[in-house]
């Protein structure tokens, strides 16, 4: 683990994003339990180091397409937390004014272009965003994220083929948390490594430990470099686990106890923190400061959301079509 790490500043940026994601996730769940938020919530706790490590290689100009389990991806990409919180709380200041919700947060300013609740559907859309960049001669890349289960839907296969044939600057990031709802990888997927599916489409497939931010960083660096230089798409499979079940309320009975215990003991978050300080990349005081800053930022985001007015019902008449807007 942690082989050939980048500079300490980069490592600390990754850590900061992981902290931000974890704190937001914990708080969302707490607010749901307190009855302050009502929504279906697909927690990504356990998966945070994947987007954290990838996004330090991206700018706002790069595009992101993500899924219902995507708040970690959005935060890492730079969607302001206050806009996400206001969205979850159904406020007029929400990223989508409360009309999209947790499964559809969108924020083009930070490159978060489409978030879909339909398994696999983001991949063709990611191809199109990448096509636009290619046709315009732009250097931006498109990251399109999805789960292991999504590699069994037609959209995945059509997209990898199309991206390969057209050499699109797109990176397909499979966050393999070993379950699709209640179906294990072995039961639903014909192949052990999803990254091997890349070979059928004549594109590189990289299999990486998604609990190792350094490994994810290197895999992403190669893929992003290839996409930016016209070398076409890459499939990255990052192995991970989701600690809070498919969605909040899922008791997770289908997960063998030993498997769950092993996954939780491999939690990337405390491990990475320990490694950062033991290797001298950051002092304990620095890490404490990052955590305190992120906690304060979260408080401000939550306050912003709940201080904002609820979206007025008249909003349902707007933005069905362009000309419907007042």
């Amino acid at each position, binding site marked *: 683990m942690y082989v050939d790490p980048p500079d300490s500043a980069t490592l600390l940026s990754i850590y900061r994003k992981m902290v931000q994601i974890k704190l937001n996730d914990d708080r969302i769940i707490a607010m749901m339990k307190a009855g302050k938020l009502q929504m279906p919530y697909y927690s990504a706790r356990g998966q945070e180091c994947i987007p954290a490590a990838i996004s330090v290689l991206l700018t706002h100009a790069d595009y992101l397409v993500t899924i219902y389990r995507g708040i970690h991806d959005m935060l890492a990409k730079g969607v302001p937390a206050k806009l996400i919180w206001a969205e979850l709380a159904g406020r007029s200041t929400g990223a989508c004014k409360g009309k*999209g919700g947790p499964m559809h947060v969108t924020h083009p300013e930070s490159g978060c272009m489409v978030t879909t609740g339909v398994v696999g559907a983001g991949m*063709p859309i990611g191809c*199109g965003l990448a096509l*636009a960049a290619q*046709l315009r001669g732009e250097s931006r890349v498109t990251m399109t994220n999805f789960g292991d289960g999504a590699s069994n839907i037609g959209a995945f296969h*059509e997209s990898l083929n199309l991206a390969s044939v057209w050499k699109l600057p797109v990176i397909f990031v499979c966050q393999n948390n070993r379950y699709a709802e209640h179906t294990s990888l072995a039961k639903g997927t014909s192949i052990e490594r999803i990254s091997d599916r890349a070979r059928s489409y004549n594109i590189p497939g990289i299999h990486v430990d998604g609990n190792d931010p350094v490994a994810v960083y290197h895999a992403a660096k190669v893929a992003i470099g290839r996409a930016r230089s016209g070398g076409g798409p890459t499939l990255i499979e990052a192995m991970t686990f989701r600690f809070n079940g498919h969605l909040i309320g899922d008791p997770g009975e289908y997960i063998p106890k030993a498997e769950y215990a092993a996954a939780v003991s491999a939690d990337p978050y405390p491990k990475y923190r320990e490694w950062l300080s033991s290797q001298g990349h950051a002092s304990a005081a620095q890490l404490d400061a990052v955590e305190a800053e992120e906690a304060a930022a979260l408080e401000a985001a939550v306050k912003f959301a709940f201080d904002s007015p609820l979206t007025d019902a008249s909003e349902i008449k707007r933005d*069905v079509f*362009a000309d419907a807007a007042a």
Partner: protein
Amino acid sequence: MSEQINTIQALNWALDDAMAADTNVVLFGEELADGEGGGVMKVTAGLSTKYGARVRSTPISEMGFTGAAVGAAVAGLRPVIEIMLMNFVAVCMDQITNHAAKLRFMSGGQTHVPMVIRTMTGSGFQTAGQHSDFLEAWFCHTPGIKVVMPSNPADAYGLLRASIDDEDPVLFIEHFPSYWNPGEAPKRGVSIPLGKARRVQAGSDVTLIGYSRSMLDIPVVAKKLEAAGVSCEIIDLRTVSPLDMETILTSVKKTGRAVVVHEAVRSFGVGAEISARIHESLFRELKAPVERVASQDCPVPFAKQLETAFLYSHADIEAAVRRTLA
């Protein structure tokens, strides 16, 4: 006599002129480029030679390339894609109804999807149940997408130009059995606004409402009725969704009678919606219930005599008019 062209030529002109006017217009679909024949019906002939990479033949991946059009449109291009035959929209419904039609609303107006989906259909060539259906009602039932259905070459040109310029997704349904029928040539560069029906002929006894294929039949029957002393007003909807209720209601208010004619099957169709809306607005002024003339509620059959029995006949239209007069 003025210059005559057919619908294939008119569509080709519209695409050519739109591409010349706006470099954001891109075309893709199966066999569209000249290397693959310029489209199965040659609608896109010559365009890839003229516009290069902006016109692309795709793999047989309707879900993939329709989704790519959604992504490209979100990124600011104006994709015009071709689904070779209307029945094949069934394999990319998710991208059309869950994504193209909804992203503007679900993103709170931050993104929108200015794409056109061209497709063609119609019975008469014995292509049976999976190559002939009119499925416009599926899309009219989806808020966020417009449905345009021209009936002649000049309208095909003007409506396609307006569809490409529209800020929202448009499903553009072409009647392919009449592709080769000559008609008055369009004025190049002139769009026909969406959402506006055309009063084709003024009359006083009954309003005949049609679009696409039924506009080939309605004038023939109207002429016969005219000779028998029945004065028919004819309306070509041109845009089926959103409906131009103003034009419809103005006419029916005057005549007190209405007959809606379409090739799509009868039940739960566009005719039912128009009938309901007329009854809701003009119940007391109607001299007879609104009549619907449509195809039988069965899959389009193969054998010629069955295919003929599936579609409405001119006698059916005449009988419906006579029922309103009885």
